[in-house]
Every structure is written in structure tokens, then in C-alpha cells.
């Protein structure tokens, strides 16, 4: 096909093929350019907007990973260090200690440590957290809302279509620029 024979004119099929090939290449190039121009150059990752999140619990079960990439994050900056923490204790807790029967978290992923009277520090053990959002609901309802859910990017595989974003009833999960992959409570307002 590549042999050039000056006596033989180019065949119709070759002519059409070459034409389509050139047009096709130009179209693909144009399409790519249009996508770049209309889109942008920033990489995007999935993240939960904690102010839109309603803590429905879908995050724990609908992520494609066996262990959800969503975990509870604690912004200590805005935490009240309450002795009676709405995120740690269920409303009908028998007593305010670390007994398993008194914990709201189904996996015991929140550590409660005494700081000084009357303050307690609450920290998340990410290895245990399943992202169910029970503590977030409690903290948002009774406390400062310092507990919130975030997609952890050391676990997240950044699916083309995030399965939890599809099941999110409030549309809280959107693509965010990868330079700011977290939406941290208390950091969105200028200090």
C-alpha cells in the first residue's frame, strides 16, 4: 500500500481511507483541545462537604472498597472538649465513662482521654472507624460539630464515578481540586 507507483493512480479506497484518517486525526486533536479548553488543567478528587452532609450512613456501605474510604475526622480547633460529648455518648448513656455500653460508636473507634477538669479529648482511631457518621450526627446535634466525615485520600482510589456520591441523598460529595483535597470544618472561614 505504501509502495508508490507513478503509473498507477491512487485507488479510490486508499483515497477515502487517507482522507478519513486525516479528518479523524484532526477531529480527535480538536476534541482533545476543546475538552482541555472547556475543562481545565486541575486534577480533581472526590470529597464530602461537611456542611451539606446529613450523616445518613450510606458512606459506610456504598464505597466500592471493602473498607470505606470515608472516615470521621476531628477538628480539635473547634471542639468544646465536653465531658458529656454528643458524639461519644448515646443520649441514654448509663454513665459517663468509657464502658462499651456507654459508647455511641459501633466499633469503639473514638478514644476519650482526660485532659484537665472538666475537659476530655476525643480522637478517632482511623483503623477502626467505618465512616457510619453516628458520632457526627450526635456532635452536630448537641455539640460544636467538630466531628465530620471526610474521604481519606490514602484509601480512596478516586473512581471515575464515586459510588457513594451516587447514593448520597444530599449531593454532598463532589469533585474538588486535588490541591485542596479536604474540606476541613473551622478552616473555611478566615481566622
Amino acid at each position, binding site marked *: 500500500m505504501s509502495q508508490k507507483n507513478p503509473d498507477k493512480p491512487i485507488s479510490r479506497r486508499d483515497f*477515502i481511507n487517507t482522507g478519513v484518517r486525516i479528518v479523524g486525526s484532526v477531529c480527535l486533536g480538536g476534541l482533545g483541545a476543546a475538552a482541555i479548553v472547556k475543562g481545565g488543567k486541575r486534577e480533581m478528587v472526590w470529597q464530602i462537604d461537611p456542611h451539606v452532609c446529613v450523616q445518613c450512613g450510606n458512606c459506610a456501605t456504598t464505597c466500592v472498597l471493602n473498607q470505606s474510604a470515608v472516615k470521621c475526622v476531628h477538628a480539635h480547633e473547634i471542639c468544646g472538649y465536653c465531658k458529656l460529648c454528643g458524639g461519644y455518648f448515646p443520649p441514654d448513656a448509663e454513665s459517663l465513662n468509657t464502658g462499651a455500653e456507654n459508647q455511641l460508636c459501633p466499633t469503639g473507634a473514638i478514644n476519650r482521654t482526660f485532659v484537665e477538669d472538666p475537659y476530655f479529648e476525643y480522637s478517632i482511631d482511623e483503623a477502626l472507624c467505618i465512616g457510619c457518621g453516628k458520632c457526627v450526627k450526635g456532635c452536630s446535634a448537641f455539640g460544636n460539630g467538630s466531628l465530620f466525615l471526610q474521604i481519606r485520600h490514602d484509601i480512596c482510589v478516586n473512581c471515575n464515578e464515586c459510588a457513594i456520591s451516587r447514593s448520597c441523598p444530599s449531593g454532598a460529595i463532589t469533585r474538588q481540586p486535588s490541591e485542596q483535597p479536604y474540606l476541613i470544618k473551622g478552616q473555611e472561614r478566615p481566622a
Partner: protein
Amino acid sequence: MRVGLHRIVSLILGIPLAMNQLMAQDRFPRPDFESEYSKPPINTPPPQSTFYEYLDVLILFLALSLASYLVLKKRSRNQIFLLSLFSLAYFGFWREGCICPIGSIQNTTLALFDAGYFIPLSAIAFFILPLIFALFFGRTFCAAVCPMGAAQELVLIKPHKVHPKVAAVLGLLPYAFLGAGVLFAATGAGFIICRLDPFVAFFRFGGEFKMILFGLLFLLVGLFYGRPYCRFLCPYGVLLGWASKFSKWHHSITPDQCTQCKLCEESCPFDAIDKPEPILSADEQKQAGSRLGKLIISTLVLAIVGGGIGYLVSMPMSKMHPTILLAERVMAEKNGLVEGTTLASRTFHESGKLTSDLLTEAQDLRAKFRTGTVLLFIFMGLVIGLKGIGVFFKRTNLDYESNRTDCFSCGRCFPYCPDEHERQKVLDQQKDLYESIG
């Protein structure tokens, strides 16, 4: 229980819950510690480095180049197979099947229709590179670079033929899937090509039960019928087929002149070998001419009918969009057509957004869906019509040739050609062997 009380209080005070949650941040004062205690920092592990994405593009380019070389120059089925195993390991199990060129159709579409979506350069490269290669070398991407194709190559142990009529009907599915994938991505209804990815659950060693079941189905069918996903569902295969049809070079069964020995006739498990067609006589050509006229007219009729059907089904189709679904649920609840609430409708009411805004948004989306669905069904009408023309008007090839649209360039047919044995000096080696034995 206290949550309930809290809600009641906020309702009495007339404060929407969302507002309440915003205010919640300052419910308790932040403590001043007297001890040495310092607040622990927030651990924010960074996303996977984009370095990997550029490495993926580089490896994609190298793999495509190597695949094209192996198919066109080296002509080695074994080496093509080895490369496909590498692709399965790297793009499949190591990079966990995301992003792939099949899914990148949707990223590209969304980037064109949604100004707010930023498409990564790697996604564009994944979409364009295999197509450019197909324009010059045929579907070498399918042969050895696609991890999904490689997975199906691996399980194909006892190939059977698919009945041509069944294959023709099933062969329409990829076009419908491509059209639907573009429509859903363009309207923002979601990435259905990713949702129906049969193998991603295997690549990740986990996933939804129905996804695993869907993948198992393809693997089971794939034991006996070659590459069922590639042939009867893959939307990217449609685009590759179009590009490959006009490719500059293409995989050929024989390295030399075809002697029409028919040895390769049954070698292709994907029915991608075209047999020689007799050249039509003058009478037959005349008949064919009038038939072509009828076929073109029926193609146009099919397109128009398709448009009509598209108009009729656009409303049910649009229910696939979450916003439209929510708007209809909210209205149904308001008008007392349904009892109770769903999680989505409760969330909507709690958010304090206006129902009228939701309805306007849904109305805009419905209009987009109507246009898109009509176009999709016109496209399907044209595809069916043109496929019909293709059945009657085959390309007049004189020899056994691989079908440029359907051939995956897998190279299974190479060893069936006696000229290939000649080229690789297999016969000479065998002769030497016989002589050495005596």
C-alpha cells in the same frame, strides 16, 4: 430521643435544621487549657500523586507502540499474549482498572458539556491515544493493552461460534451503550459505562454483589464465546472499529500473498475473518444498485422512526437522572400520590432549598434529555440501517482477510497460515530435525 427533641425545638423556633447545623459550631466555648496540652493536628494524607497518572499515559503509549510492533512486524501471537498479561497486571490489578479508555468517553463528554468539570490531561490522553493508534495500526489496543480484553483472552478455553443472526443483533448493543453513555454523561445523570464495568470488581478484589455477578457472567460466557464484553457491549470498541476501518496499516492473516488455502477459515474465535466474495456480474450489480436505493430509503425511515420513539421514551429515560427523580418524588409527596418520604426527599426538605428551584432545574434537564434521547434513537436507527446495508454490500475482498472493524488483532490466525510457517522457517527447522533423527 434528644435528637427528636432538638428537632422539635428548632421547628418551633422556625429555624431550618441546616441553619442550625451551621450555627452548631459555636454551641460551646473553646476551652482555655491551663496544662501544657496542645491540640493534635488534623492528619490529611494527600491524594495519590498525579505522577502515577502521567506514568500511566507513558506506559499506555509504550504498550500501544509495542503491541502495534508485535502485531504488524513481529507477528508473534505468544508475545502479544504476554503483553496482554502485563496490561492485565498493570492497568488491571495494579492500577485497579481506573481510569481506562472505555470510561474516558464519559470524562471527555462531561468536559465538553459541563464547564464546571475539570478533565485531567491523563483522561484525555487515555481517550485519544488508542484511537490515534487505531487510525494507523488497527485495534492493537484491544489486542494487548486493554486489561478487560486480556481478562477475557485468558479465560477463552473452548471457543464456539455465535450464530451470525444472534451476533448481528447483539452487535447493536455496543452502539446503544455508547449512545446512552454519552447521553448520561452529557446530562450529568452519571457514568453508566463505569457502573456496568464487569471486571473492575475483580481488579479491586471487592465490589457490589451484582457487579461481581455481572463480571462472573461475562467470564463464564467468555469460556465458550470469545470476548463477549468486547464484541457485544464495549462502547469504546465502536469508536476503535470506526477508526480501524480506515487504518493505514492493519493486521493481516498472511505475511505474504494469500493462497486461499482456507486453513485460517475457522481460526478466529471472534468471527472477524472475511471470506473471499465473488465479484458480481453486470446483472447482479444492477440488481444491487436498485436494492441499495431501497436500503438507503429504509435507513432514513428507520432514523425518523427512531427519532419518534426517542421522543416518546425520553420521559421514562430522564427518570435515570437523580435530580429529576427527586423532583418527581417531592411533587408526588406534595400531591399526596405517595405515602411517606424517602431519604433523598427528607434531605431536600431539611436543606431549606426551594421546591420551585428544584422543579425549574428538573424542567431544564428534561428538555436536555428530550433532545439527547431523540438524537440517540436517530443514531440507533441509522446504525441498524447501515448495518443492514453492510450485510448486503460486503467489501469485495478476493482473499481471506481480517475484518478491519471487528478484528482485535490478537494474532490467533497467524500460525494457521502456511506462509507464516515459511516466513519463520519452521519447515526448515522441522526438516533439519527429521534429518538429524535420521
